């Protein structure tokens, strides 16, 4: 009994490490997508009144009084701007309205009713939409981030509606990201398969050099490689200069190879190529050359031998390489941001943007959750169609 436990116990440190440093942060981050307590904690009474409000006319005096008082307290705790920021995400332009309200509450004690004070701070306090936004921002558990991440929103009556066209961004971007990833995967397969075959069949010494050639770019900084592609591909870059010098392209009509989809595809394919070559190579190495010779001696043409013998045997490597490249490509953002031009933004660029710039971690978490779900769904799909046992990662 004890002996049986000893072996798994050796893996415990790793399991604990993965739990603490990987699984737990992911779960905490995903929780941010649905759990937003800041506004509810700061304005409990106001929101209790608003919960009972029909959402149509301007709310009753008690709501104004509670809001003025609680916002004042929030301002003293330096929370007013954070609340304003949250409400601003529901309805743009309300940030200053909330902050102004909090500041008036602070000095205006006794100068008129709470309603008059808030209205004097900003007339937007008389607009039911302001209060609706406050109520929405005050939901402790919310699906709003996930709705927004799918270009949806709740209308005034609470029904789910599509965002106005000029704000629909995430779904088209997700589709584009999937398309780009698929294209990169296919390109990597087309380029990587023959390379892997050459390396697998080369004598040991040459194979080492060839492998090194695949790995050196793999070890080079991503930024360096991407910038190098810009130098090569730009309009007055090496490739265009060469084409013009050879007379293949007119000087006035140089090719646009970078800052568009072409540039993204070329650079991403190059960056991800090793992830395709290595698994395929390791599988090919295990296929004895006599299998092909046997097929040919039994009368198969080289094409038939490849199609019926070699290709099926390499499938586990192809599957692993394709899955690796596809999943890495879905999460890519530095390369597309640098060489992609206007069409170059991918889904992960928006996650980075909301993490670093807009500080809307709730939305970033929701976007990340969607990306995780897509990758998970793809893996399940792969299991069902190709089969998990057909996967060799190295």
């Amino acid at each position, binding site marked *: 009994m004890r002996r049986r436990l000893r072996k798994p116990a050796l893996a415990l440190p790793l399991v604990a490490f993965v739990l603490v440093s990987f699984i737990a942060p992911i779960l905490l981050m995903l929780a941010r997508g649905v759990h937003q307590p800041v506004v509810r904690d700061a304005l409990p009474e106001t929101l209790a009144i608003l919960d009972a409000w029909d959402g149509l006319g301007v709310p009753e005096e008690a709501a104004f009084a509670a809001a003025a008082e609680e916002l004042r307290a929030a301002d003293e705790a330096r929370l007013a701007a954070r609340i304003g920021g949250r409400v*601003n995400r529901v309805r*743009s332009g309300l*940030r200053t309205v909330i902050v102004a309200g909090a500041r008036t509450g602070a000095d205006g004690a006794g100068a008129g009713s709470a309603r008059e004070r808030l209205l004097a701070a900003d007339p937007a306090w008389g607009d039911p939409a302001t209060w609706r936004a406050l109520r929405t921002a005050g939901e402790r558990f919310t699906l709003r981030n996930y709705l927004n991440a799918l270009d949806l929103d709740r209308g005034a009556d609470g029904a789910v509606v599509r965002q106005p066209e*000029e704000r629909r961004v995430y779904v088209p971007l997700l589709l584009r990201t999937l398309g780009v990833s698929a294209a990169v995967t296919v390109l990597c397969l087309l380029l990587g398969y023959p390379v892997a075959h050459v390396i697998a069949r080369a004598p040991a010494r040459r194979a080492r050099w060839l492998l090194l050639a695949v790995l050196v770019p793999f070890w080079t900084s991503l930024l360096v490689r991407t910038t190098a592609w810009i130098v090569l591909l730009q309009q007055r870059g090496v490739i265009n200069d060469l084409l013009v010098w050879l007379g293949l392209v007119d000087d006035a009509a140089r090719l646009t190879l970078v800052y568009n989809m072409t540039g993204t595809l070329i650079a991403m394919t190059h960056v991800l190529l090793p992830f395709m070559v290595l698994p395929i190579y390791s599988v090919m190495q295990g296929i004895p050359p006599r299998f092909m010779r046997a097929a040919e001696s039994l009368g198969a043409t080289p094409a038939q031998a490849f199609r019926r013998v070699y290709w099926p045997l390499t499938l586990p490597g192809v599957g692993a390489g394709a899955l690796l490249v596809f999943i890495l490509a879905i999460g890519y953002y530095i390369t597309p941001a640098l060489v992609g031009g*206007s069409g170059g*933004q991918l889904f992960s660029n928006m996650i980075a943007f909301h993490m670093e710039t*807009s500080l809307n971690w709730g939305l970033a978490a929701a976007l990340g959750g969607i990306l995780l779900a897509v990758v998970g769904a793809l893996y399940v799909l792969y299991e069902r169609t190709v089969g998990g046992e057909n996967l060799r990662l190295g």
Partner: protein
Amino acid sequence: MKGRRAAALLVVAGWSGTVGGSACGGPPAPGGSLTVVSWGGSYERAVTEAYIRPFAEAHEVAVGIESYNGGLAQVRSQVEVGRVHWDVVDLEAFDALRGCEEGLLEPIPPDFLPPGPDGTPASEDFAEGAISECGVGNVFYSTIYAYNDRLIQGEKPATIEDFFDLERFPGRRGMRRSPLVNLEFALMADGVARDEVYAVLDTPEGRDRAFRKLGTIREQVVWWEAGAQPPQMLADGEVVMSTAYNGRIFNAQALESQPFVIVWDGQLLDFGQKAIVAGTPNLENALEFVRFATSAESTARVSGYIAYGPVRASGLPLVSTHVETGVDMLPHLPTAPENERLSLRMDTAWWTDHLDEMNERFSAWLARSP
């Protein structure tokens, strides 16, 4: 001898330096330590020479320098986790405003700031709006557009309208991948007077109008993200003209003799601010540093290394020549009278309210482009 020792205390940590920039190894500096965070590149070199090194020497403080790319994410995570290792940070004005309201930055009492050399109190000496509750302005920088003289034959562009005129000036243009500045440029090019830009932008029709105008050149735009890109793209001939930070273009002109020409018409003026991260253990040094870095002399010295102007009225007369080339700096500053006349001041408050919405819309607009 003393100078040499202080210089040795100046530790330059890379931007991944989460270890903190305090002088590791060696005896601790008598004045304690301080970590200053700036924008990197030529701007960081300028401020290092202009006031970080002099401060380290004068106060015998070990100053670590880190660079970052802006935004409040790192400041916020340090404050929330309670392990603050950045002390003084260079921030864009609207981030200083947001960070202050969210309690991420220490308030800086305005009467703590040094008066001008002629005794003018700080509150009158600084440009309007340059001091906020937590942020103290130090330099004016500006987004202009510049063209490569070698690539445009015949008539040269001279106004903001010309940037959007593909017929008279064909060729690709560089623009920052952000709605900031671009919406203002679009409206000015569409005939909106400078002092009405933000009033127009405040209406839905005005925003539609700005995006429509941007749409007229979208096919020809190459989007940039880092300030170092536009001079590179202009030099490579990737674009014929580009929006850019004026200091970067000046450096390319002065140090690399690039044939770039700045068009000041419609330049968008903004200031960089210094702010102190809330809860820093080095508060005293941080305050002293802010005081030192925002003196009229320090802000004027920055102009000797990069073409950004002091935000203090008393700093402008102290501006002299470029340290490396001896060029007279005043005409190259965005706040030189003949340049400032053509400028629009960025409305920080408007952008604080609308940045999220505009970013979303801008992304959607880009994503729909062919």
